[in-house]
């Protein structure tokens, strides 16, 4: 079964309207943040160890975005990239606040259970994801950042390029290289 696309299918075309409305009225911000909530949360959650902290940071991201929204104009930077820049900054700030007590780059350890019909298949899937988590933990921050933006934030290569300040081609090449490197060590 082909699942509906998480974002591409649900009316990207009216995003400028949503942005314009939210720029004039903070109460019109709802549809905009609901559209990006899961994506931003997943990106943040990939960087912090706890659900509560991830939720707190995600909330900060959207409130900072709301404050900055009147100054936003596209000018070649898509809204998604603009929002994830804020998310990136907020996560970086959270690192600095807790650097003294918490190790950096803690990947989430408690994934939601994989729901399946067969316990054995579930177990294999869990083990497979656990192995993937170990491999991700071995990557340096920059590589994990790209993966979190691409797979957690569901950003395209050009959008990631706008977030991290590199060219789309360089981002795409780096992502492909990361996947190939992971594949060599991860048998799926």
């Amino acid at each position, binding site marked *: 079964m082909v699942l509906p696309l998480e974002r591409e299918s649900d009316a990207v075309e009216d995003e400028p309207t949503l942005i314009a409305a939210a720029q004039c*009225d903070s109460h019109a911000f*709802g549809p905009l943040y609901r559209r990006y909530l899961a994506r931003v*949360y997943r990106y943040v959650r990939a960087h912090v160890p706890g659900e509560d902290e991830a939720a707190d940071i995600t909330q900060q991201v959207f409130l900072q975005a709301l404050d900055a929204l009147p100054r936003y104009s596209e000018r070649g930077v898509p809204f998604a990239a603009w929002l994830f820049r804020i998310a990136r900054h*907020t996560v970086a700030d959270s690192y600095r606040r807790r650097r003294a007590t918490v190790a950096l780059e803690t990947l989430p350890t408690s994934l939601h259970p994989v729901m399946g019909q067969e316990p054995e298949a579930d177990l294999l899937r869990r083990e497979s994801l656990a192995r993937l988590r170990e491999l991700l933990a071995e990557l340096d921050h920059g590589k994990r950042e790209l*993966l979190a933006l691409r797979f957690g934030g569901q950003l395209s290569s050009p959008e990631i390029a706008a977030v991290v300040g590199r060219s789309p081609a360089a981002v795409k090449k780096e992502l492909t290289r990361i996947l190939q490197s992971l594949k060599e060590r991860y048998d799926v």
Partner: protein
Amino acid sequence: MSDPELFRRYADLLEGDASELAPLAGQLDSFYTALEPPAHLELAIERAVRTRPVLATSATGTEGAQPRHSDKRVHAQTERRTFVKSRHLQTFAACAAAFVVVALMAALLHGFGVGVGRPAGPGPRLDNGQQQNFDRLGGVYAVVQARCPADAPDCDLAKGIQETITVLFGRLSATFDVAEMVVRQNGPDSILIELPGVKSTAQLAPLLNRGALSFLDTGATFVPVGSLVGVCTTSCQPGEYKAVFTGADLDPNSVTAAFDPNSGQPVVIFTFEGTARAHFADYTRTHIGQYLTIALDNRIIESATIQSEINGEGQIVGLGTLDVVRKVALYLQRGALPLELTVQVQRVVAPGTPPASGVSCGQGTPLPTPTRERGAAPTATSTISPTPSATLATIPPTPTPIPARGNGPQPTPTAESGGDGCSTPTVWPRNTPTPAATLTPPPTPAATPGR
């Protein structure tokens, strides 16, 4: 996820020979998709959005005072403010009669212009919610005087004060996480500020600096870092330097406080906006060998030789502490204040203090009001002064961004000396050994994303 969906979603990574990566991409998708936000988060954000601070507006200003220039930041915030105003129109109407009666009684009892409690300015009174909120929480109360800068001969105080309120509100909103913040006109040249719940005035002063960044054409003249100079835009007098570019030419979305990945020092990165980018490239190409000097509020933070064409991206390093860097970034993001502000009164009002026993603008002891001549050192409202080692360098590939300050403790701003200007400023591309002072184009970005 089905294969067609997977290939559609990650088409850029799985095209051609890379299709063998599809299983791994599917696993990564599952890994990240499993990180679902908690159910309460959406509601929490919605609730937080509804309690954001509201900008109080002056009845004498908003409608008639259009922004003096086409700064989009000002336009956008003015629109938002206008909406907020209309949203509270009914509340204002309902309370208007009561306010009139109260204001008349206060004027009779206490004399014109000498109110008890908060001063009664020509603007509207605060709505009940704002007033009660401040009375209940206490907080910082300040009155600042606005005046035209010496380097703006065509300045219109009446219009400028509305722009100043808008920019100031943006700065305060980005710094203080408080509800029902008030920034309103309090007289022809006066602005009232109330920050409910804020316990110290230390954070307020640096936000009252103009924050005007100027790129000066100083020709073959090296200007020592830290010195104060006269800046002009059109007709220049002897001893003044012409600003060929200003902070308004920068893309506010591009301005970021960041950490330089090599030195670990906090820096401000920026990009020129639109046509200014090409103009800057043209300017640097045609002025090779001459000095480009950067000033913040007339204080020199950099003076260096242009070595070759620069494509419009850059960073300011060596500004000093993280707090200073944040403030400079905030100035550039929110825009410079069109007027100079001088603190007349600033107090911390205790929680639960009724208005009548709060502060008296007329009877209080004003802070020293500095007389700032053209080029004179900012005093009472100035705490941001770059260190002598401030430099402009081309943008590194991936400085680690520093978010704007939001919640949490607000450290006391650092007052720094402007330096003696005796150090040799240097401007060089990233990863280049320290040469003589030069301006150079950006290097080819290296692939080092992230922190």
